[in-house]
């Protein structure tokens, strides 16, 4: 009796869901205010118009300096998506660490995004001051300061996350500056101000990018926003940075021109709105 009942339940659910699917297929553009889906964001790191491969000395900056990269890591947080009608959907308390050596980290997913047509994406490069000052128990996942291994994404002598880290080698670097011609550019600095401390340099940067095609979130569409991230902009942004001169950056004030540069390195290349 029970079995028969649950069986019929199952059948009716199946029928209902079939009905539902065929229904929503027909009304592609209708936005169901109750439906949500996820949005994936893919960070494809490049150097100019070349694929970024760590260790390959195939790149050259505007100063004509050849270089190879050995590390590229950065935090992304405080993502927001803006609908075409201007309403903004925020994703607070979600932090992502994009690491060149870990392809999984380059695809991040926002869950429970309301249906709608999204035209812009905003995010912060780094970890905001609130989280930078939060108790250790709240620092989980990519914010766990003991989780970085050799990546070392935390300044332990000046409590704060390293928002952005790029390292490599260049034959343009004088061996007097670095015997192995290595460079290390670390950007952090959330603005200080704890326990009555003075305000210090703030290198948090927020970018807003418009999408060439809207991301159309539906019950059956989980868009993927594909970003191109051009590491060459770290040197060739609004500020021109020469590795011969600037090859060791480990303090917030010196890092500000770099932060202003990498703010320009993101662009939305395309959006996938494939049906599931």
């Amino acid at each position, binding site marked *: 009796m029970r079995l028969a009942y649950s069986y019929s339940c199952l059948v009716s659910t199946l029928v209902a869901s079939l009905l539902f699917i065929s229904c929503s297929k027909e009304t592609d553009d209708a936005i169901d205010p109750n439906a949500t889906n996820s949005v994936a964001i893919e960070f494809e790191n490049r150097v100019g118009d070349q694929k970024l491969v760590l260790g390959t000395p195939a790149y050259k900056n505007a100063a004509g300096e050849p270089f190879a990269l050995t590390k590229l890591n950065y935090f992304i947080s405080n993502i927001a998506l803006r609908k075409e009608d201007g309403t903004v959907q925020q994703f607070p308390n979600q932090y992502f660490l994009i690491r060149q050596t870990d392809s999984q980290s380059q695809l991040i997913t926002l869950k429970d995004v309301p249906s709608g047509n999204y035209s812009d994406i905003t995010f912060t490069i780094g970890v905001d001051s609130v989280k930078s*000052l939060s*108790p*250790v*128990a709240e*620092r*989980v996942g990519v914010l*766990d*300061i*003991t*989780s*970085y*291994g*050799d990546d*070392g994404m*935390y300044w*332990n*002598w*000046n*409590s704060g996350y390293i928002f952005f880290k790029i390292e490599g080698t260049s034959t343009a670097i004088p061996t007097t500056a670095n015997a192995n011609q290595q460079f290390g550019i670390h950007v952090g600095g959330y603005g*200080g101000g*704890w*326990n*009555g*401390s*003075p305000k*210090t*340099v703030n290198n948090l940067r927020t970018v807003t990018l418009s999408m060439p095609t809207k991301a159309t979130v539906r019950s059956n569409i989980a868009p993927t926003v594909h970003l191109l991230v051009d590491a060459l902009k770290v040197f060739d942004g609004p500020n021109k940075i020469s590795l011969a001169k600037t090859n060791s950056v480990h*303090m*917030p*004030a010196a890092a500000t021109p770099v932060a202003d540069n990498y703010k320009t390195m993101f662009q939305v290349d395309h959006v996938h709105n494939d049906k599931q």
Partner: protein
Amino acid sequence: MAGLRYWFMKNWIDLRATIRLTGLCLLVAGCQTTAPDAQPDEPFVKPANFPEPVYALDKNRPTTAGMLLGRALFYDGILSRDGTISCAECHNQTYAFTHHQHDVSHGIDNKVGTRNSMPLQNLAWETNFFWDGGVHDLDLVPIAPIENPVEMDETSTNVIQKLRKSPKYPPLFKAAFGTDEINGPRFLQALSQFMLTLVSGNSRYDKWVRKEPGGTLTDEEQAGLTAFRAKCSGCHAGELFTDNSFRNNGLFIQGSRDEGRAHVTELAQDRYKFKVPSLRNIEKTLPYMHDGRFYSLDAVLTHYADNVQPTDNLDPILQTGGSFGQSRPGIPLTSDEKRQIIAFLKTLTDDQFLRDPRFVEP
């Protein structure tokens, strides 16, 4: 022997805690099934003459099991790359948990740093850590020495992995946190729980303030206290003997030319400012200053009386025409005053703290 009896009398409360603690040790080690003592489990106790602590105790209140775990970690070389350097290497209880006889600290492979180790005491009352205040939360301190290439030269990620693999630690984490999961936040909180219990508030001076037995100060010491209040307490203020601020006390700029606070804030007005240190147990924490340049309290007082330099950001109190109407930078001190101040400073030695069995290497 009489000394021992005196010690027992004075330390009955602490002794009870120790006995409880030892019971717990046995419990952890021997898996006994007897119910633990029903006494409140509060290894952190605020001395009556201290202000309220600033550490967020509600987020990480020390328990006996947490403190025991923290102590085990504090004394364990497993926190360093090659297993040779524990926190205690540079923070030795006998000297109020500082590195004795080293002006600047010696770490792994006998590498030397640029700063003098600091005593670890009354950390629950500190708002910023290190000579330059670079770390704003006690829980965030340990990764600095662990990951410093001249101190312990290890990644904290690897420390957590080593702890997970060791047979010793999972049961200790279980006792402290309820499950045997070992993770970064728990590791850091346990170390804090131990460090928070390092409270020094039973010096002869404290007993005098609290009018407790044994709390006597000689005339010389009382004269020293009066002189100290007039000449030093503008910075070394209150019962912790620091106002937790950063100031330039006019040392010659020498050696590594450490810019102190400016290293962290990158602000010109912070150059050569260092944390005003507490003076508790000062008799035991030599050498003195951020780079350990003075080997005696005499040398310190000679500095204040004769050698204060008008360097950038010299504290207004110490400038010509400052708090003492002085005709040149520094603090006018007679030789009597110097002697009396030193006599007073020695009353801040807390033998009970320096020998407390709860803090000894397990």
